């Protein structure tokens, strides 16, 4: 009964059951109870996965360290997201309330699947599933603009997914042996060894471009930004953290699988190019941003760029990339929750209309400042460590020019974020906001402080197990 695979199936069955229950019976209390229950189940499942680390279940799923780390991030963020979700949709009619939570559970489940999937196709299927689930959430407030965002998101994502699929097919071609064709990671390593590098290169390019929709990386970062604009803040938090992690995971997996082959330099260059462009564009847009959430969305783009660059540099950069993606998840999620609260308090996302936050809601303002500190990777933010490691890798590999440019771009990003956030916190709004304002109970902010505290803690001391896990993840990558 308690063998991994059955638990595994049980979990997805539960997800399905709870999702359906909530979705069909439109009752708020029920939805609340079941969702909370699901949160607990998910945590329990994560713990269980850790206990069975390294095993493979139903030969389509595996509990490898990277998947587990990201899964745990998901579990932690699930708690906060569900919590903030309850607050955010408090006043909605039962139907939308129920749909919201059903979709949320579907999203969490599909992301879990994507993390644990063993095999490109499996990942691909779950990524597709996340698209469908998140579409419903983006469309949560049924406005025209929400519809547009949803449409764009779904459409571009599906195109991207299709491209990614072509990449996977190319993997398929490289094998002469049909038994390997379900492309489990173990088999791909074997394929990659005897494969024609050209095929691998094309496969990589297509997969990168395809999943860049999810990871929010150039070239297909555009729609996630739009999605952020309209999605409920808790969902934005998911989109720009755990969902981006899904994209990252997909790309990282294929990168790791090919890293043994001669196409490694090619992959590095492509990653550097794409990451650098992301950084450039995000810097430009943050200097222009007039919408608080879009600003954060672009900051996610920037951070993904950093991750891609770190990955592309290699060496200690791999460590940096993993650490960065974890910390970014916490920091950015906290910031998005904070955005939700600031929206409640100030009644607007518009930068010009928002301001004087320090007097309206001191706790939130403090959280915002702290989050700013974290996301801009200024010590005592833990992300400073990851960026330091990235620079270290650059110095080690002699990418001095790139380093200088990246540093300059950082300064611009810092400038953009500082000016905007400080405007929100301290100075008076340029034009008075029209939206209606409400009070927020300071205790709701505690969760954000906890997340930021986690990020800051890493600056001073990286927990041993974290370090070991990350090292375990990157152990097979070329030094």
């Amino acid at each position: 009964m308690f063998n991994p695979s059955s638990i595994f199936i049980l979990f997805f069955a539960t997800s399905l059951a709870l999702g359906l229950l909530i979705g069909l019976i439109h009752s708020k209390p029920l939805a609340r109870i079941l969702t909370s229950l699901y949160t607990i189940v998910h945590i329990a499942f994560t713990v269980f996965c850790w206990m069975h680390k390294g095993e493979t279940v139903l030969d389509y799923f595996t509990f490898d360290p990277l998947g587990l780390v990201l899964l745990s991030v998901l579990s932690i963020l699930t708690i906060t997201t569900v919590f903030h979700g309850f607050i955010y949709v408090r006043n909605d009619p039962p139907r939308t309330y129920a749909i919201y939570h059903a979709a949320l559970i579907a999203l969490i489940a599909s992301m879990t699947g994507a993390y644990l999937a063993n095999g490109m196709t499996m990942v691909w299927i779950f990524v597709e599933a996340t698209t469908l689930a998140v579409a419903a959430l983006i469309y949560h407030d049924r406005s025209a603009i929400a519809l547009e965002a949803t449409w764009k998101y779904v459409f571009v994502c599906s195109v991207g997914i299709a491209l990614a699929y072509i990449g996977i097919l190319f993997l398929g071609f490289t094998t002469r042996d049909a038994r390997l064709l379900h492309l489990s990671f173990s088999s791909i390593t074997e394929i990659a060894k005897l494969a024609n590098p050209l095929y691998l290169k094309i496969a990589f390019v297509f997969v990168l471009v395809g999943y860049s929709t999810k990871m929010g990386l150039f070239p297909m970062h555009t729609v996630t930004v739009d999605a952020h604009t309209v999605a409920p803040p808790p969902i934005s938090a998911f989109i720009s953290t755990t969902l981006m992690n899904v994209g990252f995971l997909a790309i990282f997996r294929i990168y790791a699988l090919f890293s043994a082959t001669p196409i490694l330099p090619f992959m590095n260059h492509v990653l550097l190019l794409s990451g650098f462009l992301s950084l450039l564009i995000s810097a430009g847009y943050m200097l222009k941003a007039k919408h608080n959430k879009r600003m954060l969305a672009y900051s996610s783009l920037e951070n993904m760029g950093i991750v891609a660059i770190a990955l592309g540099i290699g060496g200690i950069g791999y460590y940096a990339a993993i650490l960065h993606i974890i910390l970014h998840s916490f920091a950015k999620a906290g910031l998005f929750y904070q955005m939700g609260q600031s929206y409640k308090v100030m009644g607007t996302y518009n930068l010009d209309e928002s301001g004087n936050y320090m007097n309206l809601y001191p706790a939130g303002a403090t959280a915002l400042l702290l989050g700013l500190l974290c996301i801009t990777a200024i010590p005592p933010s833990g992300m400073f460590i990851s960026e330091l490691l990235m620079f270290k890798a650059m110095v080690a590999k002699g990418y001095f020019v790139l380093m200088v440019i990246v540093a300059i771009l950082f300064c611009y990003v810092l400038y953009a974020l500082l000016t905007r956030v400080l405007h929100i916190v301290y100075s008076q709004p340029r034009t008075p906001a029209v939206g209606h304002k409400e009070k927020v109970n300071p205790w709701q902010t505690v969760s954000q402080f906890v997340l930021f505290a986690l990020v800051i803690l890493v600056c001073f001391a990286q927990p041993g197990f974290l370090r070991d896990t990350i090292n375990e993840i990157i152990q097979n990558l070329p030094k």
Partner: protein
Amino acid sequence: MTNMLIIVFAISLIYLSVTERFRIYAGLVGLQGLLLFGLSFLQLDRITLATVLFVAIETLLFKVIVVPFLLFRIINRTGVARVHEKALPSFYSLLFVSLGLLLSVIVAFSMNTTPYNLMFFIVSFFAVYTGLFLIISHRKIFSHLVGFLVIENAVLLLSLAIGSEIPMLLNMGILLDIFVSVLILGIFVMRLRQHIDDLTILKDD
């Protein structure tokens, strides 16, 4: 025979890229579905009920019946039958598409594709190219939709190239893909009627 069908498929693509009437789009998508059905049928070496059923659902049911039906429905509902006026003149789009054909031939040749049939590669590259080109060059969402469907077909075509035994998983993927396309069409039919023109509220400039 296989190559024959593929050639037809390619021709349909070219025609797709130059025409301006939505009904023709819908028809062509259906036609492509039919061709794909034929192709996948030919690619099967041992015919079992399961596989036949699968192929039938995958191609005949969805690609030949459901999708074109939805397309026609949209056209009727929205009453928009032509592409946007300011779309690329068909002459130029023809140029671009033939360029794409050349490109895909070059790419396909530049990689040795044995033991697979080269035609599959050329045409499916060409199909991807055309699909993307449709999306890029047209302004109306309907054309984007068609472009997406073409890309789907390209994927299916490419997967057929592997020939012999397509593992269940790949098929599952393709099926899911098709579900998605249907769902998108669904959204489109249900919601997007009112703004049939391009949506550009969300932007930074």
